[in-house]
């Protein structure tokens, strides 16, 4: 009866949970996994930076300023003779933190508001959307600058300022998704079968809206890192000497006519991180897309 047993087991395969199933298919997506692994490795490298590089991120060697890459300093040194590679590693800490924590704040605020507005519709939607409108009507950078100017320097203020401004887009996106998904019939069916709001939201609406949300989040992580760069550029980024890729780029920008390395390496780092998040995001989207499940 062996075959029978196999058949029975095998035929029970498609009955995973949404997430379990997604994980199975994510694992099969090589690019996505590559992206994820890169991010993890980067995170580890950031955490264990002291074990990887002998240089501290603030250690100056005024006799070796703006040096090109060499065996001593793999990626050269900056305007105060600090090892760029070391600063990149330590900078990854800040930049990843900025990228991820701001998104946590963004999702924390944007997802529920968007979901509620989109699902409930009617008056609730109206009220929430007016609130969103107000937030939304602020020019981002100005609001960030104002908040930052009030709160003063420091990385937490940075998360707060960026996150507090960036959640609106997600909220709108989620709402839009909710509204279009809601009108599809399987949700109607679920409703007909007497599914409760939260249940429907969790089981049908969210999974079906996840694609675009994830795309936008994976895009916003590097974007937050950019915002940080822009803020560093206008001089209100993280507090030196703590490096962040953004601040390294803007520091590098100041001396771009002396040494383009100063901009190139952090920019490259951001690009790689961005690509990693892109692949991971696409992978997640496909993995989580209900229409792709058999």
């Amino acid at each position, binding site marked *: 009866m062996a075959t029978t047993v196999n058949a029975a087991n095998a035929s029970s395969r498609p009955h995973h949970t949404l997430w379990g199933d997604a994980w199975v298919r994510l694992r099969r997506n090589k690019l996505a996994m590559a992206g994820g692994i890169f991010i993890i490795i980067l995170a580890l490298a950031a955490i264990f930076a002291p074990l990887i590089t002998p240089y501290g991120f603030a250690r100056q060697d005024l006799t070796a300023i703006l040096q090109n890459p060499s065996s001593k300093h793999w990626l050269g040194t900056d305007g105060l003779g600090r090892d760029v590679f070391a600063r990149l590693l330590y900078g990854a800490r800040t930049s990843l933190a900025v990228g991820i924590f701001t998104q946590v704040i963004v999702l924390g605020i944007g997802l529920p508001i968007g979901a509620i507005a989109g699902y409930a519709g009617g008056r609730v939607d109206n009220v929430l959307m*007016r609130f969103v409108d107000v937030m939304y009507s602020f*020019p981002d950078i100005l609001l960030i600058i104002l908040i930052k100017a009030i709160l003063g320097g420091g990385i937490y203020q940075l998360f707060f300022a960026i996150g507090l401004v960036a959640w609106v887009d997600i909220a*709108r*996106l989620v709402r839009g998704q909710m509204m*279009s998904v809601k009108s599809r019939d399987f949700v109607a069916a679920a409703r007909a079968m007497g599914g409760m709001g939260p249940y429907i939201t969790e089981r049908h609406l969210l999974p079906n809206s996840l694609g675009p949300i994830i795309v*936008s989040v994976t895009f916003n992580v590097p974007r937050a890192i950019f915002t940080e760069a*822009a803020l560093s550029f206008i001089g209100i980024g993280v507090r030196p000497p703590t490096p962040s890729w953004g601040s390294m780029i803007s520091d590098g*920008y100041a001396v771009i006519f002396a040494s383009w390395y100063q901009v190139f390496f952090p*920019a490259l780092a951001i690009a790689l991180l961005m690509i990693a998040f892109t692949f991971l995001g696409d992978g997640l989207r496909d993995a989580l897309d209900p229409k792709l499940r058999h």
Partner: protein
Amino acid sequence: MTRFVIRRVLWMLLVLLVVSFITFTLMHLVPGGPWSREKALAPAVVAALNARYGLDKPFFVQYANFLLGILHGNLGISYTYQDRSVTQILMQGFPKTAILGTTAFVFAMIVGISLGMAAALRQNTWIDYVCVMFSTIFASVPGFVLGILLMIVFSVVLHWFPTGGWGSPSQIVMPAIALAALPAAFIARITRASTLETMRQDYVRTARSKGLLERVVLIRHILRNSLIPVVTVAGPQFAALVTGSVIVETIFSIPGIGRLFVQAVFARDYGLIMGTVLFYSFVISVANLVVDILYGVIDPRIRYD
């Protein structure tokens, strides 16, 4: 429909009011005032200035006066450029910022949608990879870096474009590109995602079952549906482009209000801050409204009520 628009416009005014109040409050919470200088002004001078700008009055009186001013279409006098009115300054700067933002928006849309569609329709082919790479790389370079790179390549090396300033079309190209890069990439990604999504829809299969030409299926059935999410982000993107040209304007020395308003915050130019914020808020709200209308136009499921 008209009722919807009217109601939305009224809402908009309310929103602007709230925005103005929040900004006004934040602004006064920010440490440091317009008169603090490295070489301190004499107390008499500061007193005179406060008197001239009504800063000696209580907070709410100041706000009330500000609102009254607006009713008379008067945003007050700049604190930095003390012989020019805020309205004057905005009117001189805005057209430039608007043109720049719009050009960048058009770039971003054309490039973004083209790349996105191409990538989706040729999923997992070299076209797809090229498009993804292109958009990723462009999105991975901060505006100011891209700006100076363009400048070095196209001005210093190739002598194609002037490094900055305003006036001739040639002076818009580089800033517009620098400004459009990130949104273009973003739109490309959204388009790709939603096109892939749409291509899997049953109605596309139905369309094919009617034996329609691929082109017809693509344009009538796929494109239009896959643009819905794009439109949702288009509005924010447009607003972001018009209001987000701060750095690009700085690098390409464009006499727009983008450059002005960060300076305004740093200079604590209360008049200019309020002016720019309200101005920008207005632009954003309008873009927002337009998008909601468009959204309804391309997606009949959305009802205005």
